[in-house]
């Protein structure tokens, strides 16, 4: 009985096994085809594949920059341990309203040139208007800047005072950015890297997907390993590394003024360390999303990001 059943079942088992093998092979081939498709597609039509990826992200709602949200969460944990409010904020960021997508590290020519209109001795409401929603890091409120109003009659205008109006105002810019030259209250500043302005502050066409995106700083060309000097006196607020900015650091110069340096090859200061204007804080590199060695510099005044071109010098060419 046992033996017979065994004999009868044998051919069926064999057939089933072969079918399993075929399915296995088919699946393997399908996986290979899929992988090759994506791999070759990305090599031959990078733009097309990128835009498909973008569309898929839109549909599944993955437009939130998870990396930024996760980094902010990790940062909060580092500052004061695991707290419910940070987790809540993270959930709100990921599952809540989506921020307008603004990014860009891309190299192209600046589209707007600031023009001098004259000195305006008033504080704009722009300082209160800024939102840190787009900032990759948390910003303290611009209290110092607000408290400084109304401007004293002294020769040095208060921090945040609009000195020169940027062309076209700040209307076209994303929330939290201004084209105006704001006063830094007579702070002694140093050009961190003297180089050619590769890419200015403002909107430009993305060289990969052709989208019109915002660039929140300036890209200054330089050689890998050249020193990056501190924009002013202050202390190292944070140091970090991510896929887009590479190795980066931010200096806090007090009065709400901060400078941010990205794509560094190496950072030679520690978090919390005091630095003097002109002191070497890092070396130029091409870490993160960069096409070559350069310094991506951002300047912040209160909760506003300003055009660094107002405050640093470039070589002409």
């Amino acid at each position, binding site marked *: 009985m046992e033996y017979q059943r065994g004999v009868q079942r044998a051919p069926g088992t064999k057939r089933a096994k072969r079918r399993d093998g075929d399915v296995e092979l088919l699946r*393997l081939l399908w996986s290979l085809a899929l992988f090759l498709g994506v*791999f070759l597609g990305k090599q031959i039509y990078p733009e097309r594949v990128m835009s498909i990826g973008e569309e898929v992200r839109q549909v599944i709602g993955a437009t939130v920059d998870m990396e930024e949200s*996760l*980094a902010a969460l990790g940062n909060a*944990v580092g500052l004061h341990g695991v707290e419910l409010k940070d987790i809540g904020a993270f959930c709100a960021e990921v599952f809540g309203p989506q921020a307008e997508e603004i990014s860009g590290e891309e190299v192209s020519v600046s589209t707007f040139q600031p023009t001098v209109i004259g000195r305006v001795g008033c504080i704009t409401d722009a300082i209160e208007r800024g939102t840190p929603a787009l900032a990759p890091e948390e910003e303290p409120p611009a209290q110092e800047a607000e408290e400084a109003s109304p401007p004293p009659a002294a020769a040095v205008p208060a921090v945040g005072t609009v000195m020169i109006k940027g062309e076209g105002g700040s209307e076209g810019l994303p929330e939290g950015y201004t084209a105006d030259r704001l006063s830094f209250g007579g702070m002694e500043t140093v050009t961190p890297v003297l180089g050619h302005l590769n890419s200015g502050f403002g909107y430009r066409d993305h060289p990969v997907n052709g989208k019109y995106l915002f660039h929140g700083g300036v890209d200054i060309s330089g050689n890998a390993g050249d020193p990056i000097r501190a924009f002013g006196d202050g202390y190292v607020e944070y140091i970090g590394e991510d896929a887009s900015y590479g190795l980066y650091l931010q200096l806090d110069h007090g009065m709400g003024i901060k400078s941010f340096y990205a794509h560094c090859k190496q950072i030679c200061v520690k978090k919390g360390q005091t630095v003097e204007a002109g002191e070497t804080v890092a070396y130029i590199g091409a870490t993160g999303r960069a096409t070559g060695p350069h310094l991506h510099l951002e300047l912040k005044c209160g909760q506003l990001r300003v055009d660094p071109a107002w405050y640093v010098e470039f070589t002409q060419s």
Partner: protein
Amino acid sequence: MKLGRVEVSRGALLLLAWLLYRRGEGLAAGLFAACLLHELGHIFMLFLMDISVKLIYITAFGAKICLERMMTYPEELVAAAAGPAVNLLLALLWAKRPGGQTFAGINLSLAIFNLLPVGMLDGGRLLSCLLALWMEEGQVWFWRDLLERLLLSALAGLGWGSLLCFGNPALLWMTGWLWMGRRGKNP
């Protein structure tokens, strides 16, 4: 593909191939490392409790560990808690390291996600073990099911709210995935 007591699904191999192709770009590598360490946490705890592992089946969605014998409730409680505990520990350790914030964030969010008291997740297993410790076996399933339904309904409500108000379907996707996988893994 089978290597000793570890079996890897095709999906996971494909995922691994993609990870290698991307060479650690973006979040994928961090997420992979966090998941790996999470599972190693479970396995290490099982090793400490001298429970031998029959098979570890790795899929693109997580690892399933088959054991030589059934665990008692306290044992399962400890084993299930070990994974999220590892992630929590990593989050606290890496949050202090320069450049480690993203990895810390990944770990913390992974720990919290896994602690959701829903079916296949560690939180679900923890919940059943805790319930089993102070009520009869028959009741455990009733309460667990009820709590799960309540939580998932609340999440689904929030998910729809988020989709309709903000146009963000992420929470709804996640809830749907949890709902589908609710009966996927038996304790």
